[in-house]
């Protein structure tokens, strides 16, 4: 690992219908383990990953909401949740597993510009 990079993950998929949300999380945690600077953005259907009271055992899956709580344990502190995506899905901050600050598109746009690499799924 020669160069430390500023890497942003934009997680845009709902938690269970596809495996994209899990893949995105796995990549981010791997980057964090290998000491990269990692940012995590929940956008579009990705905000559904944060919904409280998921019980994925009902479909024989692991509850992704629990795994999301691991982000900060792995040192990923810069977590952004898109306010417009929350609003259009009638979700409130109180509905989420994490205490988050909502951001607007300009914040996300600035983060993308500042990033060395962006994974978007």
């Amino acid at each position, binding site marked *: 690992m020669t160069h430390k*990079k500023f890497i942003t993950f934009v997680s845009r998929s709902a938690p269970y219908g596809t*495996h994209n949300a899990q*893949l995105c999380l*796995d*990549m981010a945690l*791997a980057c964090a383990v290998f000491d990269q600077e990692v940012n995590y953005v929940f956008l579009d259907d990705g905000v559904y990953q944060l919904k409280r009271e998921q019980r994925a055992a009902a479909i024989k899956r692991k509850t992704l909401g629990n795994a999301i709580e691991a982000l900060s344990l792995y040192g990923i502190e810069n977590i952004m949740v898109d306010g417009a995506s929350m609003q259009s899905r009638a979700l409130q901050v109180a509905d989420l597993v994490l205490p988050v600050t909502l951001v607007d598109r300009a914040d996300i746009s600035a983060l993308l510009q500042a990033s060395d690499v962006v994974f978007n799924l």
Partner: protein
Amino acid sequence: MKFTIVVYAAPYSSEAAHSALQFTAALLKAGHEVYRLFFFGDGVHNANRFTVTATDEENLPLSWHRLILDNNLDAVVCVSSSLKRGLVDASEAKRHDFDAGTLFDSSEIAGLGQLVDATTNSDRVVNFG
């Protein structure tokens, strides 16, 4: 420039695996270096050597295999994605008592650390899904 290509898409489900192959070939033709190909999620099916296609249809896994060998590329399939999709190399096949490995030997099974390494050592990472 040094590129890493990440492929999330299976062949024959969407066009993306084909696009990734064309893009990689174009990179090499332009004289760029491919640091690593990383097959992730359903993308691991691109390394399935038991792929059979009609004679008039492109065999994408075989095309990848040839591109990798002809250009001596480093190609990795993600271990957690590949095993659960039946993509095993000879040693995994032996360990699980299967008759044969399903993976082209031009790709290697490895963990996400190889993607992080590729990300840190490449000028560009381009994703196809």
